[in-house]
């Protein structure tokens, strides 16, 4: 791998956690066109059917979402207070969908959108064979960005993450230094999101700091929620 040289302050490579995002696992039969259409209507989202790709992020502004974000109420069923006004996603909340398997997707959204997404999706998919599970807090997202990002990942990941094989919009579940991660190419700077289970996150972050020490990796502070 070619070495673009030492990073400077403005061209540096950074690692930052994107904490507390909403993670929702969605499973349905990809041959069930009605189910795919129901998701498209409910969330304005076309699920990526091509393996190891993502749907481009889109604002959560579908009518079903706006309706679900209506008056705050305690959710029945699961009993989670997801509609508390402090937890409702902002209007600009963005939804990101990742292919996990032929019948499984991960949906990422702003913090606090889990209950609303589960409710909207379950209503849209009822009574089809589908599963919607809020996995928020089960995993976190580490964002690695900058010219040395690929070099850092190459220390512990066997995948070809170069721009030809892994362009923005690609994602892959693989091993990073023996930890299971979902790697997603976000943009061409390049920016990668690493979705790791929370129990692996301290290890993955420590490993990235160590691997990045030879590449001038800086830790950045998460944006205030």
């Amino acid at each position, binding site marked *: 791998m070619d070495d673009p040289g030492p990073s400077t302050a403005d061209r540096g490579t950074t690692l930052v956690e994107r904490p507390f995002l909403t993670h929702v696992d969605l499973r349905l039969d990809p041959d069930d066109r009605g189910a795919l259409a129901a998701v498209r209507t409910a969330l304005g989202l076309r699920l990526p059917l091509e*393996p190891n790709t993502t749907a481009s992020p889109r604002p959560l502004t579908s009518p079903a979402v706006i309706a679900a974000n209506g008056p705050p109420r305690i959710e029945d069923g699961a009993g989670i207070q997801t509609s508390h006004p402090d937890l409702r996603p902002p209007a600009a909340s963005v939804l990101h969908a990742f292919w996990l398997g*032929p019948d499984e997707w991960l949906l990422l959204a702003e913090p606090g959108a889990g209950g609303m997404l589960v409710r909207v999706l379950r209503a849209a998919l009822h009574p089809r064979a589908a599963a919607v599970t809020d996995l928020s807090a089960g995993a976190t997202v580490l964002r690695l960005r900058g010219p040395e990002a690929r070099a850092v990942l190459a220390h512990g990941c066997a995948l070809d993450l170069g721009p030809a094989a892994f362009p923005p919009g690609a994602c892959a579940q693989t091993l990073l230094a023996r930890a299971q991660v979902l790697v997603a190419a976000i943009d061409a700077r390049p920016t990668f999101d690493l979705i790791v289970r929370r129990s692996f996150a301290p290890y993955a972050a420590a490993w990235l700091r160590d691997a990045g020490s030879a590449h001038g990796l800086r830790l950045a502070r998460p944006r205030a929620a």
Partner: protein
Amino acid sequence: MLQIPCPWCGPREDAEFDFGGEADIQRPADPDALDDAAWADYLFMRVNRRGVQREQWVHTAGCRRWFVVERDTVTNEILQASTMGRRP
């Protein structure tokens, strides 16, 4: 390093996979009709052929799907990989 072609994710290193033994084992249609030996054979006995065999693998660290690999156990050459229940 052995590379295994996942039918969905493409070739990946073998560390991402787990092995599941002989493929194409059919559950007996009427288990009550089997004697203990036949049931034990279905449950436990697996061939481990020298040469090409069809075996189950799961992409544990990837898409977590089971699939069938045709592998030469002598040379480790992988001839085919296909999704479950579908003979190539």
